[in-house]
């Protein structure tokens, strides 16, 4: 107790890790679903997340809409944005080499960042305050914001909902079919475009939910906020096994915990925190190329 870490500090760090990890998880699901279907790293996903944060900011702080209306509008707009990106930037390239698709994704990401800088200026905007969610509560010597508890709960229920959707509904079945093989799915009478659009809709919707929760906890909105978060969440998806919803959640949590615990146990290395995600990624790819829960993929020859 005298040297090193007290139990309270450790528990507090665990809560920190759970909260940030669940946020990573929520956004990672969007990556994993798109990758599962298109085999594409949707580089723009982090920027869709950023745009969602701006939508909410404008709704509440500029147009003074009630929060529930704003949240609804944010989710709808973000879904439209995600589906629109797929329609105009990815669909025309579906038969093109993968590299073109990837470059297009990077291009969309770059465009959204620059557009946001141009339209909303590079200055941070203050995200509206939600006192009910952010005023800390004490549990003994632990201090927790309600939003930090809300985040893991929301993530958990969204995961359950998605698993149900994928495994027990017609849309989910179609998604699984498309993710295995386009041509076969087409022969089975599945409308590929519809399935891909709905995947983007779900992924973007989750990005919107993630953005709202993220900004409640970290209330500043910036044009470049999605870049690092986007990368980390993609890494989370890879750690868990890309294409797998449970894997994305697991990966997000692992990433969140490792970051916070590295800070906790090696305070001298805190400057290297952003490198943790990449180091984990490379280790995972070397030893478990399909992630923790991913299926082995065999290339057809």
């Amino acid at each position, binding site marked *: 107790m005298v040297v090193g870490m007290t139990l309270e500090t450790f528990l507090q760090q665990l809560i920190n890790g759970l909260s940030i990890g669940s946020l990573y998880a929520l956004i990672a699901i969007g990556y994993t679903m798109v990758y599962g279907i298109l085999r594409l790293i949707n580089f723009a996903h982090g920027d869709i997340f950023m745009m969602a944060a701006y939508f909410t900011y404008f709704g509440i702080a500029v147009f003074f809409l009630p929060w529930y209306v704003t949240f609804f509008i944010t989710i709808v707009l973000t879904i439209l944005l995600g589906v629109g990106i797929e329609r105009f930037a990815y669909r025309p390239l579906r038969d093109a080499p993968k590299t073109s698709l990837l470059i297009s994704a990077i291009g969309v990401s770059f465009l959204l960042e620059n557009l946001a800088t141009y339209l909303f200026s590079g200055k941070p905007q*203050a995200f509206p305050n939600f006192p009910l969610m952010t005023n800390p509560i004490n549990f003994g010597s632990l201090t927790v914001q309600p939003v930090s508890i809300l985040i893991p709960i929301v993530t958990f229920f969204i995961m359950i909902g998605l698993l149900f959707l994928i495994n027990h509904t017609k849309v989910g079945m179609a998604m699984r079919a498309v993710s295995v093989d386009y041509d076969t799915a087409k022969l089975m009478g599945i409308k590929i475009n519809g399935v891909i659009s709905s995947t983007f809709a779900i992924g973007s919707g989750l990005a919107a939910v993630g953005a709202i929760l993220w900004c409640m906890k970290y209330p500043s909105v910036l044009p470049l906020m999605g870049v690092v978060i986007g990368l980390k969440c993609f890494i989370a998806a890879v750690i868990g096994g890309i294409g797998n919803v449970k894997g994305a959640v697991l990966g997000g949590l692992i990433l969140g915990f490792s970051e916070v615990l590295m800070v906790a146990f090696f305070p001298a290395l805190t400057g290297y925190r952003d490198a943790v995600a990449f180091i984990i990624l490379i280790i995972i790819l070397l030893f478990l190329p399909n992630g923790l829960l991913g299926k082995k993929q065999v290339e057809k020859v």
Partner: protein
Amino acid sequence: MKKMLVLLLSLALVVPMVAGCSGSSTTAEDSDVIKIGVFEPLTGANAAGGELEVDGIELANQLRPEVLGKKVELVVADNKSDKAEATTAAARLIEKDKVVAVLGSWGSSLSIAAGDVVKTNEVPAVALSATNPQVTAGNDYYFRVCFLDPFQGTVMANYASKNLNAKKVAIIQEVSNDYSVGLAKFFTDAFVKLTGDPNAIVATGNYNTGDQDFTGILTNIKATNPDVIFAPGNYTESALIIKQARALGITAPFIGGDTWETNEFITVGGADVEGAVMSTFFDDTNPLTEAGKTFVAEYKKAYPDRENIPAVTALGYDGYMMTLDAIERAGSADPKAIRDALAATVDFEGATGMITIDANGDAQKTEAIIKVVKDGKFTYLDSVTVQ
């Protein structure tokens, strides 16, 4: 067909460029305007700071639009908060626009990047709020109107030790920001000297520009129970740090540097940044000089809807006024003559205090303002003199 189109498009991009280059403008002497370059980040990470300095420069230009009977024209170049762009922008100002002096930039590293350009082209530059010693070190053509990091670090260490009676301090620094790292170091040195306790810094946390989650480092710091937390760095991250610290139940006061003094610090930080203390260059409620009073009055006239006047705007104003003063004393718009006049500046009355340029090209200032956030405003708290 498509490829030809691309080719034509590219040609359309390049040809005017080259044409524009070759037909470049007339030389400074035979023109009846004097051009001064404004070298600031208007996009990218430092955009907010850049805009504030430009405000001050433009205000000064409106007040004093002529020197030596010639009209002064400001040429604004955006250095995009990026070094490669910064050097090109500086070269463009000097070569293409033929400016006789350069003002800026917010962000020491951008000024350092331009240092070489102004030095080789022998055009003087005046840094406004760049506090890093390296901006002027070894460069005869770079001057500045603000104080330096070592001074600011000492001021805050004094404040923490004397006014706040702190014995144990935790530091949170932005490792990827030269300003923050420098200030943290100078603070540490001064504070350890003041308290005589080599272990007076009980914890150090590092973060990177753009980070949003600081709960990990803050939890560590909470465990060391410091009296004061010194967190110099970018205003957005700093505001988030303070917010998260309060959410974790950390009650120790936060102190920082001049970069905090932006409206975004308060809008992002909200009620949680109440009581945050920072050192800065200028206070509009207590102008130190007559020039300061004029500046405040003019600023309020120009921007009646703005509440407080950022210090960097005052520095922008001072930079312009000092440069014009030098041009007047030089009696010519020749860059070299202006440089010599700038170097010889003694007791120039600026809005932020009396400015005397020393051998390094730095403004010798002995007084810093301490401000605190009170009721959502930056409020004058104290002024500190350190020799």
